[in-house]
């Protein structure tokens, strides 16, 4: 098996039953594994709520380490739509030419840095800085701020393993509180100020609500983007012909981005809380229990995707759910797609070859399933064209 491959641990459970079970702390989860079931469950917010106790829909659950509700992600319609409409346009800014140009400069610089080094550890020296620097554009704040976030390391928002680490999460919370305080005293044209100046249901957003949006902005796009970028580098290291193809046919880059997101599925799953006794794929689920929408499994559903376990760079019909599905679909998807497009374009233009020297896989433990989601570390060398 190639080092860059991500296996599909859900295959037999998906084919045989359509669901899996995992024990998450003392609050077990029924995982929905087929694409159609995932979509239906994501759509049915009345039976499968996101508006549960803050932290409970996340797997592993964060109920013991946070009280702040992430917005709009932990809110159901119609309130969800009211919040989302405040920020939707802001999160489309990556499509503006000026934004694209700045992002392009950042990404070219980081590829040049990688080319100048003999070897580079991709997670901490490439993907983390790339994600952090790009986030300054999304927040519309000075570039230098990225240094602070890079200093936090890759795991500041998450636990390692099952034990959740509240002190790590608090670094982020205290930081956001400070930034919001600064923005309220000196409003600017950054996302903090925009939020504090926004209205929902005819009143100003509270600092707690603004914090809920910011926590989501930081947490949602951290390890996911890092995984997408790192997995791409590993993939192109083992598939130089794919890099060559992007060089020859840059017009397929958009499709390649969608396909890599499908194949990598940087976020394995996301939970919901069941509001009434019901069922998922003919399996009974009880009110107040949890289900998860397993994007990673749905994206390998062989009844929908031909050659589901293969990367088909120019896959034409690709109804993947790598950015989620329905009203909660990923708010940062526009930013991520733009980043990945620019990244692939420049990688193809500047890099001749990537060699993997050493790696440690990041395996998620989902009880009956063990899923490789990316790498804890992977050292490579880049060769310029």
């Amino acid at each position, binding site marked *: 098996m190639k080092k860059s491959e991500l296996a599909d641990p859900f295959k037999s459970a998906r084919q045989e039953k359509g669901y899996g079970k995992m024990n998450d702390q003392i609050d077990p989860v029924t995982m929905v594994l087929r694409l*159609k079931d995932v*979509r239906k469950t994501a759509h049915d917010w009345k039976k499968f709520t996101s508006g549960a106790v803050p932290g409970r829909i996340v797997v592993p659950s964060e109920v013991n380490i946070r009280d702040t509700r992430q917005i709009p992600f932990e809110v159901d319609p119609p309130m969800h739509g009211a919040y989302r409409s405040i920020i939707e346009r802001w999160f489309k800014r990556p499509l503006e030419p000026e934004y694209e140009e700045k992002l392009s400069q950042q990404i070219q610089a980081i590829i040049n840095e990688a080319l100048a080094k003999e070897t580079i550890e991709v997670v901490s020296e490439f993907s983390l800085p790339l994600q952090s620097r790009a986030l300054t554009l999304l927040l519309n704040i000075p570039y230098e701020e990225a240094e602070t976030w890079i200093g936090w390391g890759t795991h500041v928002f998450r636990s390692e393993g099952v034990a959740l680490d509240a002190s790590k999460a608090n670094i982020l919370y205290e930081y956001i509180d400070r930034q919001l305080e600064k923005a309220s005293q000196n409003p600017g044209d950054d996302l903090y100020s925009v939020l504090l100046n926004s209205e929902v249901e005819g009143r100003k957003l509270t600092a707690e609500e603004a914090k809920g949006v910011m926590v989501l902005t930081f947490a949602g796009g951290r390890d996911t983007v890092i995984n997408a970028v790192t997995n791409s580098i590993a993939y192109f290291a083992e598939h130089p012909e794919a890099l060559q193809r992007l060089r020859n046919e840059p017009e397929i880059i958009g499709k390649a*981005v969608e396909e890599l997101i499908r194949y990598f599925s940087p976020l394995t799953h996301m939970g919901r809380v069941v509001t009434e006794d019901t069922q998922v794929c003919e399996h009974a689920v009880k009110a107040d229990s949890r289900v998860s929408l397993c994007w990673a499994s749905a994206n390998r559903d062989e009844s929908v995707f031909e050659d589901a376990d293969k990367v088909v760079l120019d*896959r034409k*019909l*690709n109804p*993947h759910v790598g*950015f989620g599905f329905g009203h909660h679909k990923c708010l940062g998807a*526009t930013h991520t*797609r733009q980043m990945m497009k620019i990244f692939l374009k420049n990688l193809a233009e500047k890099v001749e070859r990537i060699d993997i020297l050493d790696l440690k896989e990041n395996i998620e433990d989902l009880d009956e399933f063990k899923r490789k989601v990316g790498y804890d570390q992977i050292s490579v060398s880049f060769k310029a064209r």
Partner: protein
Amino acid sequence: MAKITFITSDNETITVEGTSGSVMELAVQHGIHGIDGDCGGVCSCATCHVHVAQEHMHKTGAANEIERDMLELDDDADEYSRLACQLQLDEALDNIVLRVAK
């Protein structure tokens, strides 16, 4: 060359012309309000949902299976629904009228 008329949800009527690519791409190039085409045309985001004028349905034909599955969960979908990314621009579509879904 095909002339395509879009009616947006705020009832603006815009007619544009194109020769190649998909109807979604044409709409995005011309900034048709309500058609985003986030996924670039691989049938994954359903942000290019249009309703084909009933009398023009024969020009497009019905949605394919993957498209129908995407539209199935859209409250606003009906038998005239198509995803514009799955409509290729060609002569057959000339003078078609598409209402942009909400």
